[in-house]
């Protein structure tokens, strides 16, 4: 009990860091909430013109008709770019999508495995979702007419008539609003707000636990303190349990604090299915971060306590950037994504995307498992290092 109580006394001495990161978190939450505060909580899309870059390698009737169709509403630039540059252009919103129509597209579009139109867009942004849906609905419409017996030319002509920007387009995972005067697509901001508010929470979780919990544990690991405690009437196991309990309580408080604070901005969406999954996702991430602390604690003999400020920034920022917390996953390069797959932040972001798209537990379980797997690996490595040091 003495170790447990002292844990909190020492933890309190790290309050400047705690308040700093809570302040950052609060600021980010307010910013995100303010962004969604317009138009009674809705962000509307449709009848919007976007800047799209198209590369037509097929130059066929179908591809020409498709480009013409896009030009009706959007500013289409027929120009090829380097893939990395495209990502930059999308990231800086200079273009909303980059579409490549492959050679042989028309020839194969009715086959079982047709050549796909490659679309590169920021699918995390509603504009990207909107353009992708336009693209697929146009091609599906042509295919439908052809299957009904129309020639390609007729199918294209009929599609031009039937698929119109003024027509309603249903976007899976997004709410529609039939009553909108322009019949434009109206994306309800409720789901996206939950996504945006919960997306950056791993950063405060990591920074608070790394800068306010781990240093406290490391204080008890200082050679002199550790020796003095281990020659006392308190066993080493009891001391470790007390430290673990202290860490767990602080982690739980951080999780609850962030959840309650964030949920205050969600209005009536709190306690709904998506919210519950998002909270579960955050809880799992908090558990995983606590397990990461155990791994780092096992390296206390390297004197990492002195480098905690640097380590906190490297780990929290590194995990956040590589895992798609600060930069949308769609914008990340394949190499970065490959690295990101080894990080819990990546699986947190993927889970949240799926939660936002209304997926059920069966489709989230894999991502949750991957998050937990990272924690289990950290725990196993940490225990292995401790045992190795003991032996």
């Amino acid at each position, binding site marked *: 009990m003495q170790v447990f109580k002292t844990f909190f006394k020492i933890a309190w001495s790290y309050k400047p860091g705690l308040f700093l990161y809570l302040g950052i978190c609060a600021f980010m939450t307010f910013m995100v909430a303010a962004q969604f505060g317009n138009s009674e909580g809705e962000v509307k899309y449709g009848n919007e013109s976007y800047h799209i870059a198209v590369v037509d390698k097929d130059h066929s009737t179908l591809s020409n008709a498709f480009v013409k169709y896009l030009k009706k509403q959007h500013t289409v630039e027929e120009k090829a770019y380097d893939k990395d540059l495209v990502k930059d252009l999308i990231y800086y919103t200079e273009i909303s999508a980059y579409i490549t129509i492959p050679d042989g597209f028309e020839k194969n579009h009715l086959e079982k495995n047709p050549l796909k139109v490659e679309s590169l867009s920021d699918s995390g942004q509603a504009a990207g979702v909107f353009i992708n849906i336009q693209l697929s609905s146009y091609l599906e419409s042509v295919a439908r007419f052809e299957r009904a017996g129309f020639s390609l030319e007729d199918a294209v002509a009929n599609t031009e008539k039937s698929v119109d920007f003024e027509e309603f387009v249903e976007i899976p995972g997004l709410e529609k609003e039939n009553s909108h005067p322009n019949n434009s697509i109206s994306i309800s901001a409720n789901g996206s707000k939950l996504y945006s508010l919960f997306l950056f929470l791993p950063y405060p979780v990591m920074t608070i636990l790394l800068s306010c919990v781990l240093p406290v544990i490391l204080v008890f690991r*200082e050679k002199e303190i550790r020796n003095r405690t281990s*020659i006392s009437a308190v066993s080493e196991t009891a001391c470790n349990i007390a430290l673990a309990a202290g860490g767990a309580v602080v982690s739980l408080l951080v999780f609850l604090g962030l959840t309650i604070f964030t949920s205050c901005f969600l209005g009536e969406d709190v306690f709904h299915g998506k919210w519950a999954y998002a909270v579960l996702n955050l809880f799992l991430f908090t558990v995983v971060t606590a397990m990461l602390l155990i791994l780092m604690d096992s390296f206390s003999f390297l004197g990492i306590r002195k480098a905690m400020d640097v380590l906190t920034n490297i780990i929290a920022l590194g995990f956040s950037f590589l895992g798609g917390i600060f930069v949308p996953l769609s914008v990340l390069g394949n190499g970065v994504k490959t690295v990101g797959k080894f990080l819990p932040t990546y699986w947190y972001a993927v889970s949240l995307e799926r939660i936002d798209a209304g997926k059920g537990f069966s489709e989230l379980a894999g991502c949750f498992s991957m998050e937990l797997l990272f924690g289990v690996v950290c725990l196993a490595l940490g225990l292995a290092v401790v045992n190795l040091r003991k032996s």
Partner: protein
Amino acid sequence: MSDTVVEIDHLVKRYKELIALDNFSLRIEKGEAFGLLGPNGSGKTTTINCLLSLLAYDNGEIKIFGERMTPNRLDIKKRIGVVSQNVAVFNELNVYENTDYFCGLYIKEKEKRKQYVEEALEFVGLLEFKKFYPKKLSGGLLRRLNIACGIAHKPELIIFDEPTVAVDPQSRNNILEGIAKLNENGATIIYTSHYMEEVERLCSKILIMDRGKRVAEGTSDELKSLLKNTENVIVTIRKLSEQSMEEIRALPHVYDVKYMNETLTIKCSGGKHNITHVAGYFSEHQMDYERIYSELPTLNDVFLEITGKELRDKE
């Protein structure tokens, strides 16, 4: 019931090829102030660490209060207090909180602990600094806090591992007085140091160790009696002939004479009036000298004679 508090039998501790403790044995009786004396690297701290089960050893046996000491013997640990060489306190806690933490590892009752903490702080003279944080304390006060943390739970056996390293003379004096008082109050003390003056002043029994081995053991006087050299007569004189040197060497009880940098060192073995004989020689030969004085041997001389090296590293 046996009065033996600590019993170490044929302790062997190896660090790969290096033998840190080589069949080392010692016995400490209740109420003793036991000095463990040796140069740096002689095995003092290794002995203490093995005693406290902080280090596993290769062979031998350690008994404290008549019971075999193992890492899980919390009942034995409860009766031991340790003041380590390096200050072991939390910089995040103030003086009172630090003492309360370490006392709380032994004493669960809140009221009793409060009383013990107050007493410990009063004992080391830190009561007026109880709200201070360690960073605000001077080196001497920090050492005193270290002692308060080690003794607050009123242990029967207190181990002081070089507690006065890098402490100013005044604080050192306070610390030594405090330790003597603890011993007077009934605590058994183990005091390790390479400062022979401290050990000589505090300890009723002294064990000299070197290279993990026991070299000699006894009271300060017993150890000094092992020496051939019982007195050094030192004379500061500008000029001295070879013939005079030979004549001084022939004086009663003199067994060695050295003249260097205008200082004549005359080593005597036995005898009571050696300085009078030497002074008489100079006045008889009408030789002028600047200064003459006598020095009694120290534990350092004992150590030097037994092992052939100094106790303290030459600075």
